[in-house]
């Protein structure tokens, strides 16, 4: 059971990294759009 929680913690950290990557991609894309127009 503690193993389950440990792995959940690991997986949620990976998830958060993925979410942050999406946000960074969006930041770059929107910045490009601002520059373009």
């Amino acid at each position, binding site marked *: *059971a503690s193993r389950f929680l440990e792995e959940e913690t690991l997986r*949620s950290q990976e998830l958060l990294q993925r979410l942050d990557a999406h*946000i960074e991609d*969006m930041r770059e894309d929107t910045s490009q759009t601002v520059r373009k127009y």
Partner: protein
Amino acid sequence: AGLEEMKDQYMRAVGKIRGDMLRYLQESKERAAQMIRQEVLRERRDTARKMRR
């Protein structure tokens, strides 16, 4: 400049979503940990009862 402003608004919006997701994940984990604790206690009680019988 209007685009810059829109960009800020969108970035803030997505940041709020991130915060909400983070809070939800933490709450889920706490609920799971509590449920596991309750289950362990219940099984110990049940086993003790069976043993006594």
